[in-house]
Every structure is written in C-alpha cells, then in structure tokens.
C-alpha cells in the first residue's frame, strides 16, 4: 500500500502541477484508492485550516488609520510651489513694511497728546522737576529714559521760560514732557524715541496746536494753545539745541 505517486498528492491538492500532469494524476486517482483517500484527507484538512485560520478580521479603525498614514499627499507642481513661496514672501515683506512704516505709533493721536497737556495744566504738580535751568532739568532724566536730548539754552530776553519737566508714557513708551511758558500760555514739548513713537499727528485740535517732527532718532511733539508763531520759534530753538 505504498503508491509511488503518493508524494505528488500535495502538489495535486495545491494545484501546483502542470495541466497535463494534473490530468494524468486525476486519472490515476480513479484507480488508486490509497492516493484518492490521501487527496480527500488533504483537501479536508486544507478546507478545515482555511475556515479555522481565517480567524481575525482587521477592525474598521485599523483600516482608517492605515488609509490615513498611506494617503497620498496632494501633489503640488513646481509652478505652484514657486508661486506659493513667492506669494508668501511678498506677503511677509508687505506685512513687515506696513509694520515698520505704520504712522505715529499708530495711536499717538492729537487727543492723547492734548490729554497729557491738559492733565499737566490741571495738575497741582504740573511737573516732576521744577527748574528753569536746563542743566538741572536735563540731568533729572538720567536713568529714567533710554535716550537723551538737549533742552535749548534760553536767552535772558527769550519769551520762553522753562518750568520743568516730567516723565510721561504713551503706548508704554517712556518720554519726556518739558513744560515752557510763553506769556500766559504753557507749551508742552514731548520727546520720545522715534522707534517707539513716531509720525506726524494731524495738524491740530480745535483749541490746541499740535506740532510734530523727528530729529536724530527722536520724535518731538509740541502741544499748546499759544500763538502759532511761538510754537514755530520754540521748535526752531529745540531743533537747534538737538542738532
């Protein structure tokens, strides 16, 4: 009971024989009960393994995870890559330009400067350092401001009198407020660093003149209800002193 073709059973069951050999073996099975029985058992075993072996099924979430991790990234052509890069660069450049060239600290308005001036006028202590001597007022700001400036040396016959100075803040930026008097009018001269506060405010309030200019990295503003020629004159003195 040892058919010499019995070792071919596995090939036959697994469909690994050439077509002609397969047919020949099928004919052999009709005459060989030994091989026929072995084939049947192998087929039964194969079927049993197939049914039992298909035991685990991939859960839907695994499909989702795998699909996500292998999903093709949207292809972007070179043209669009360059276009996107150029557009991004231009946008950043424009934003930077807008940022650096924004007007007058964007919030230094006439109203704010006038408010500071009026507060000074209404205050019982309009200035923190009281002196008509610029050599007293100027050193007072040492250590209080991250910059320096020079008040003008006023001649004896000058219509202007220095009353003193105080520390002010506009938009978190520290600055100096020098207070001058011309006849019965007071003039506030605000001085900030131009990088913090800059730009020309609009020409004037209904009752006050607001004058602004930049010089040596500093931003000057002048607020007063004095006559315009007085502001022009004091401005000239300030500009001369800080040249």
């Amino acid at each position, binding site marked *: 009971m040892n058919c010499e073709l019995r070792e071919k059973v596995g090939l036959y069951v697994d469909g690994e024989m050439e077509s002609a050999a397969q047919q020949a073996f099928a004919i052999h099975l009709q005459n060989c009960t030994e091989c026929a029985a072995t084939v049947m058992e192998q087929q039964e075993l194969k079927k049993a393994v197939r*049914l039992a072996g298909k035991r685990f099924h991939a859960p839907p979430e695994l499909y989702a995870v795998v699909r996500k991790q292998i999903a093709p990234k949207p292809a972007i052509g070179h043209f669009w890559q360059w276009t996107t890069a150029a557009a991004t660069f231009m946008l950043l450049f424009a934003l930077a330009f807008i940022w650096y060239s924004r007007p007058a600290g964007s919030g230094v308005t006439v109203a704010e400067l006038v408010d500071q001036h009026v507060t000074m006028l209404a205050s019982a202590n309009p200035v923190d350092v009281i002196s008509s001597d610029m050599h007293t007022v100027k050193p007072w700001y040492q250590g209080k401001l991250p910059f320096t400036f020079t008040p003008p040396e006023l001649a004896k016959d000058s219509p202007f009198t220095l009353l003193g100075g105080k520390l002010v803040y506009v938009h978190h930026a520290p600055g100096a407020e020098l207070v001058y008097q011309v006849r019965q009018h007071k003039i506030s001269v605000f001085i900030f660093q131009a990088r913090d506060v800059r730009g020309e405010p609009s020409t004037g309030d209904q009752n006050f003149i607001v004058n602004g200019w930049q010089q040596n990295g500093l931003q000057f503003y002048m607020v007063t209800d004095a006559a315009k020629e007085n502001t022009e004159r004091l401005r000239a003195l300030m500009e001369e002193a800080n040249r």
Partner: protein
Amino acid sequence: MATTVIVRGDVSGLKNNDFEKLAVPLLDGLYNFACWLCGNPDEARDLVQETFLKALKGFGSFREGTNFRAWMFRILRNTFLTSKTGLERRNTTQQDEEGFEDSVVSIDTPELALVRRADTLLVQSAIASLSPVFKEVILLADIEEMKYQEIAEALDVPTGTVMSRLARARKQVREYIVNALGEKKVAGIRS
C-alpha cells in the same frame, strides 16, 4: 480568495497613488497573518501599520516582476521577525524540518473522519501549536491561497523548502487533531 498580484509589465510607472489601491485590499489578510504570528491583536495592529509604512517607503524601489502580495507579506514577516516577540519565538521554537517524504499522510479513512469532525476551535488550536516556520507556510498556502512560488518569495526560501515545510505543517495539524479527538476512537474505528 482574490489575490492582488502585479504581473510583469503592470508595475512600470507605478506611483505612490497606486499604493493604496494595491495594498489596502491586503489589509485583512495581513492582519490575520499578523495575529497568528504575534498572538496578540494589539501587537498585530502595530505590526500591520509598520508594514504599511515600510512598504509605502519602499514602494519607489518596487521592481517590475515582483509579486506585490508576496512582497507585502514578506515585509510583515521580516518586521515581525525583528520584533521582540518575533525574536523570542525564533529563539525558542526552532524545530527540525523533516523531509517531504516523511510527512505525506498515510491512507487512513478513520483519520479523514476525524479531520471532518474537527471543529473550528480544534483546528485553530492545532494551527496555534505549530512553530512559526510551519505556521506561516500553512497560513499562506491554505488561507491566503498562495502558490508555492509566491510563498517562497514571501518567506525568502526556496520552493522546495516551502513544499517540505507545508507537508510537515499539515502532518502536525492532522496529528494534533487526531490526538485531541482520541487515539482510542481512532483505534476503535480501525478495528
């Protein structure tokens, strides 16, 4: 079972977009194979994910004439073998491989009856009892219905080795079933 095989000539010009189309249909089979190898669904899940990532990465170097399904199973198997569990299994369950001749079943009609009586759980236990080298070959042949050549590519062994391992694996499964259902019954049927 439907197979995903890329025949010669079909692979030229393949792009990553094609990968999903080719690989996802294999996911269920790969997961089943992974579960049998790992014996742990969580580990199998990680193994499948890693397989897909590796395959996607290597898809660019996929060569014409390569059997895609065999290639995927090969990646999974190699990934498993280098995993902690795979290394442990390899070190602890190496068994002798016998020749094809020894493993051919003898004519035993009563055993055929026992095989027919074997329920799913028993056959699953029989498969689980196999060492990895036999388990993987019988899974690929009988569940994935791969041809010997395809299995040889997946396992990176000669076709002759596939044949001998498969015969040996089937013999062990049959013996497991027979032993479980009782030698006495077999003897009784024989007498």
